[in-house]
């Protein structure tokens, strides 16, 4: 049995449209952060949405050896969580209630909340350092805080495999570092983390493995340094990659050279 998320021959298309991604094969193991890369329109978000069950697909998708298509919606939600680029939530819910939505898959329609639910919510909030935000309204939070709360909601499902669709695209540098530090901690705890990243340098800094898509097909996979060195990736992006160029960042107090 392969641990983590295993995808083979995935072809996905939106309703009535032609296939957007073709024959995608990738492996996102537990304990690692795997970045899904590619230029605009390469099919990154479609792959993530197909894996999240939002876009119909053909092919083999399994988590720790169990085919996802065979799982009931609530069972699936307890095993695999999705963090969108931006939430569609506009109602003024409290942060705690927002995270509680992650417990939906654990409850029947009329079940009262249990101590176990309470604990899971508290733990998820603590995990993303958002306990202090619990009584604030979600819609009043900053972009970075909202993204952390969305991650907490995903963790409250109890899932240990996370799909994230460009979770840091609207965040400033510091919020980005904080968010990636959280993902690193989760991966170190054995989570499977697959995230769409737009920026190659962000992927280089924070991901262990990379999967590059070009025109809806995988053009390169492997450890990040190897992916970035591949001529096909440079060709896919249409740029020269200058090693060591640009600014580097780290959170205050984090050791130099360490992953934040």
């Amino acid at each position, binding site marked *: 049995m392969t641990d983590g998320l295993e995808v083979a021959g995935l072809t996905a298309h939106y309703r009535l449209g032609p296939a957007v991604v073709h024959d995608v094969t990738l492996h996102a193991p537990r304990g690692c952060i795997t970045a899904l890369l590619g230029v605009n329109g390469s099919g990154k978000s479609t792959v993530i*949405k197909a894996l999240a*069950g939002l876009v119909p697909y053909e092919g083999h998708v399994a988590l720790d050896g169990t085919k996802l298509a065979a799982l009931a*919606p609530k069972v699936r939600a307890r095993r695999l969580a999705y963090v969108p680029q931006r*939430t569609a939530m506009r*109602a003024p819910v409290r942060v705690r209630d927002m995270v509680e939505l992650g417990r*939906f898959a654990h409850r029947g329609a009329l079940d009262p909340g249990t101590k176990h639910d309470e604990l899971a919510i508290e733990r998820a909030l603590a995990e993303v350092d958002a306990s202090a935000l619990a009584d604030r309204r979600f819609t009043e939070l900053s972009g970075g805080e909202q993204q952390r709360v969305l991650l907490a909601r995903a963790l409250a499902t109890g899932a240990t495999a996370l799909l994230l669709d460009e979770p840091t695209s609207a965040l400033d540098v510091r919020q980005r570092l904080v968010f990636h530090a959280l993902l690193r901690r989760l991966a170190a705890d054995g989570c499977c983390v697959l995230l769409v990243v737009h920026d190659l340098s962000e992927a280089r800094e924070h991901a262990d493995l990379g999967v590059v898509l070009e025109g809806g097909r995988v053009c390169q996979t492997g450890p990040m340094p190897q992916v970035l060195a591949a001529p096909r990736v440079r060709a896919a992006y249409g740029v020269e990659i200058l090693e060591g160029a640009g600014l580097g960042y780290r959170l205050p107090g984090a050791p130099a050279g360490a992953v934040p």
Partner: protein
Amino acid sequence: MAVDHRARLAWVVLLLCLSLTVVAGLGAGEGNLADPELRETFLALRGWRLANSMLAGAALAVGGVMVQGLFRNPLASPSVLGTTAGATLGGIVVLVAWSGLLAGSLPEWLPRELLIPVGCFLGSMGALFVLLAITGRDPGMVTLLLSGFILSSLFASLGGLLVSVAQEEFELGRAVVAFTLGGVEAKGSLHVAASLPWVLVGTAMAFGWGRALDVLLSGEEEATTLGVQVALVRRWVIVWTAALTAAAVAMAGALSFVGLVVPHALRPFVGVQHRALVPAAFVGGGVFVAWADVVTRWIPTRSHVPLGVVTSLVGAPVFLFLLARASREGRAE
């Protein structure tokens, strides 16, 4: 103040208002309750009137909570979306069919008061399905409101056509016009019996689907990934919103804005979560429409003031206020 404290305060106020409503509903009117011969008759008439108005208000308010959750839009309500107009048309169709096509073919023990909610139900459900087919699942505010307005106009026109046809026959014409104007003054135990199961089961279902509707506030995609079977929830929410609207229209006619005003007034106190909002809307809706009926009895006019006039006089300004606020916040596209 924390939401929990505000919710408790809201419930105290709601229950106080409910008590006052019962006193006012039984006390208001022209008849003299001090007359020992007529007292019981007056109390019975007013009691059934009160029961009809409260149940109609409760049904519309809970229906409003459900469609607002379904469309993720605080401006949605059965009257704004054309559901009420669809139910009214369904009721008129039953009345006309009763006198025409169905005349003599139905058993005597089946009064038309029991069939009207069925017609209203089919009309309101049809209206919601047509609306969804036009607007899609996540429409913008303008699309939703315009579609609801056009559907309301269409159903009202079709209803008007049937009213004209019905007036060829005096008794039928009278029944259809009385149904169209609505009101609870001539409603009794049979109307309550015909609609009560729909209201109670519909409210229970709204409560049961509450958690799924909470998750749906995040949008259909996020809800799907959190384990909600969105298509199933949507289907049942439509069915039970239609049932609640139908029950309300069968009891009190086409009352506007109840499903908009009541949830809007309650949300700041009980929060946006549906399992808190549904029971509060049930009581709040009942109180609102019952008081509107009491007000119609207080207005000193020679002819009777329709109940829908009072609910619209309160509801329309609230609707305009919400629309203006949404427009200012850039959410009205």
